[in-house]
């Protein structure tokens, strides 16, 4: 007979309405045998009591419903973001709040390199947080005059490079492509965006940005970063799922030391209708720690990159409307194929024109082929208005809102992209809650750091990095609702709410171990609740370096 462990805790927040709080949880075969008091659980027979969490608080394991393995790949490179970030080994990478500090960290990284020709690659830089001051090649030339240096922005749509890189890439004042930013005298200043300009830089120095995410090491680091933030299930929401990648995911997740469950969504926009068969084959390879069966579809670009598709009146600063990566007509034919095959679609929509088009497409596909409980989910969905949320509710569509954007880019949305009206209602968690649309909140790591408690904090407080609060009381949600969004809410969008997301009998024994009770701290302190570690299928994983701090 298998052994039974009863974990004792100061408090267990279950997310189960019939038993919201308890002190003990019994685990057998990696699953939850019972929840209650020690007395209530003893009836299951012989057991051992594990009271290492006697002073801790247990929650259902946190679920990150939208991130990317790319986060794991990026840790091959130097992190130069504005905000603190925890690296996979648990050490804190302090945020760099001046361009000089960025240059300093790059100089240190450069000094540690042995091959004089190897490019120095960095990531996570965000120029909009320096109050209008832009980094240029003059800054990066202080890092090296000979070695190519490329710094990818947090949005991944722009980069800064040094003069050595531009020389190798042949980028001069005469280079006839869009997206090369210039000094007043017309010389390129090293900031590059758009396809051709980025290509010129990648060609001489950035190829590793494309190969790093495909490795086993990237999967390991992705899992570790998630675990440090208290996550037990993480969605990798856009993957080509090449044979090699599937092999890596399978091998890594099968290792008992790998601390999270991974849900990997097939890149359906790239595979088109052909991907249906591939997804069928992949589902047969599902394990308890690796899941296939979701297709991710693209529509527009990003708001901060001015490539999202906006409805009238468009961008606040007058920028032209963004671009489609997949237009509504093609979206319809691809969605219909996966929908008819019984798969669930997660659709990237940033601007409100994209969410409107996606909802029309879903309505049309559902009219043709009704399917109960499809749970197609709009991802990001940052600008949807109330009418669109009403439409989601009536169509049975879920939403995973990009709450972290409120903090990271809320000020830019207020001043530049959306203007006050639409920025105030962006990532409308309050509306989703009020209209009964099943919802979650996410990080989209590596775009922002993975950290469900931080995402929940954003949904509760709606505070920007500049200190502005976006929207009013009706736009916010309670701490309780936010904690539900990062557990059962996200599990529901992944069609795993029968397995994970709450602490109740029969579910997987996945817990997040906290040093304090998140429902007792001030709502403004939710992001600072220390994560001691996690329990995955009954196995305890202490976060390296002990209790981690907040994620912001």
């Amino acid at each position, binding site marked *: 007979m298998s052994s039974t462990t009863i974990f004792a805790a100061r408090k267990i927040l279950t997310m189960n309405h019939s038993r919201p709080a308890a002190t003990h949880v019994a685990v057998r075969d990696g699953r939850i045998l019972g929840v209650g008091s020690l007395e209530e659980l003893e009836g299951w027979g012989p057991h051992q009591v594990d009271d290492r969490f006697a002073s801790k608080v247990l929650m259902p394991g946190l679920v990150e419903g939208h991130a990317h393995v790319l986060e794991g790949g990026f840790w091959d490179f130097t992190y130069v973001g504005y905000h603190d970030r925890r690296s996979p080994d648990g050490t804190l990478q302090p945020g760099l709040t001046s361009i000089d500090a960025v240059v300093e960290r790059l100089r240190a990284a450069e000094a540690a390199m042995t091959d004089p020709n190897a490019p120095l690659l960095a990531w996570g830089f965000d120029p909009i947080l320096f109050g209008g001051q832009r980094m240029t090649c003059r800054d990066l030339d202080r890092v090296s005059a000979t070695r190519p240096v490329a710094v990818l922005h947090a949005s991944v749509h722009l980069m800064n490079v040094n003069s050595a890189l531009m020389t190798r890439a*042949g*980028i001069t004042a005469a*280079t*006839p*492509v*869009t997206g090369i930013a210039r000094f007043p005298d017309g010389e390129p200043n090293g900031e590059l965006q*758009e*396809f*051709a*300009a*980025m*290509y*010129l830089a*990648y*060609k001489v120095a950035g*190829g590793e940005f*494309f190969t790093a995410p495909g490795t086993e090491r990237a999967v390991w680091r992705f899992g570790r970063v998630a675990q440090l933030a208290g996550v037990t299930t993480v969605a990798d929401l856009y993957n*080509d799922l090449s044979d090699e990648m599937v092999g890596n995911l399978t091998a890594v997740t099968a290792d008992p030391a790998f601390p999270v469950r991974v849900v990997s969504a097939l*890149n359906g*926009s*790239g*595979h*088109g*209708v*052909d*991907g249906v068969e591939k997804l069928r084959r992949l589902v047969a390879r599902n394990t308890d720690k690796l899941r296939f069966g979701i297709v991710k579809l693209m529509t527009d670009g990003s708001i901060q990159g001015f490539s999202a*598709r906006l409805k009238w009146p468009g961008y606040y600063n007058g920028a*032209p*409307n963004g*671009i*489609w*990566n*997949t*237009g*509504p*007509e*093609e979206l319809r034919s691809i969605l219909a194929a996966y929908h008819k095959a019984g798969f669930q679609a997660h659709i990237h929509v940033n601007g409100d*024109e994209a969410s409107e*088009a996606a909802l029309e497409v879903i309505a049309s596909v559902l009219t043709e082929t009704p399917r109960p409980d499809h749970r197609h989910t709009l991802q990001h969905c940052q600008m949807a208005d109330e009418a669109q949320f009403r439409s989601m509710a009536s169509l049975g569509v879920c939403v995973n809102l990009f709450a972290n954007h409120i903090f990271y880019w809320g000020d830019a949305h207020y001043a530049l992209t959306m203007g006050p009206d639409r920025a105030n209602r962006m990532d409308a968690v309050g509306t989703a809650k009020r209209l009964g649309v099943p919802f979650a909140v996410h990080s989209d790591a590596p775009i922002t750091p993975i950290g469900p408690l931080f995402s929940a904090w954003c949904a509760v407080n709606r505070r920007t990095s500049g200190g502005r609060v976006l929207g009013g009381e009706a736009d916010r949600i309670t701490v309780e609702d936010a904690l539900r969004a990062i557990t059962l809410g996200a599990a529901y969008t992944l069609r795993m709410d029968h397995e994970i997301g709450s602490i109740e009998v029969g579910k997987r024994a996945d817990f997040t171990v906290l040093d304090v009770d998140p429902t007792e701290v001030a709502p403004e302190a939710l992001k600072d609740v220390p994560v001691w570690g996690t329990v995955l299928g009954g196995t305890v994983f202490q976060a390296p370096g002990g209790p981690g701090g907040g994620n912001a």
Partner: protein
Amino acid sequence: MTIALTVIGGFLGAGKTTLLNRVLQGRHGRRVMVLVNDFGSINIDAELIAGRQGRTLELKNGCACCTVGGDLMAALLDLQRRPDRPDDLIIEASGVSDPMRIAEIGLADPDYRLNAVVVVVDAERVRALAADRYMGDTVLRQLAAADLLVLGKLDLIDEAQGDAVRAWLKATVPHVRMVPSRYGAVAEEILFLDADHPKTADHVHGHAPHADFATWSAETSRPIDRGRFAEAMAALPPGVVRAKGVLRFADDDSTRPAVFHMVGRRMSIEPLAEPADTQPGSRLVAIGIPGALGPDGLWPLLNEALR
């Protein structure tokens, strides 16, 4: 040796793949690589494919191979690492992308020469699409990017409607050149026009019945004035859609002649990089819709450009 880059754009269903198949059927003895937006949309005629491995298609033609990448950036970076670099790269842009954004690579990367941005237009739907609330601006961006418009689906509309579409395109993108796709054989020549051995309609193989296009050629042993030549070419009537020349300019004392390309409205002149040209003098070939040039063909234009 620079790679000639051709970007084929146009809305989903306009006929990009049909055009691509015509191009790939051209017997040309060059190494051609094709990058398409996604596997689902590539429908290269089965008879052209010798083998398929992962994301690479080997074309029977022997001189051509075709890599299919879901991520264009990654595919382009991968191409650079390949030992067997092609003479020609054709990128089929996705139905919603602005082909000029991709074509810029041909302007900025010294490894490439931008041959042309060819946009395939669905003559039946284009005006409705240009007015579509979601896709309108995208379609207009594509039209504006084109050096050459290939008008497909004209057989689905009557002549008056066809004329109306042409007039609308002319007003919308005034400088562009256009050719109906029933002159489909033109497609092969867009890439592979040979100034020394221009095909005439009789030589052109093709499976679908199509109207014959016209070929004009002219040669001279006298040196050419660079400025006047450019003016003369810019004055070519819109029905002339492709030209190529091997030219000896009066102001050029090098022994190497220059090579001139015109695809639609895009023109380039660069030193001939191919194996040394042994023929003396200059020669010019053009193709287009019959009747586009008068009975003397290119002669009057070339005469204008002589010194």
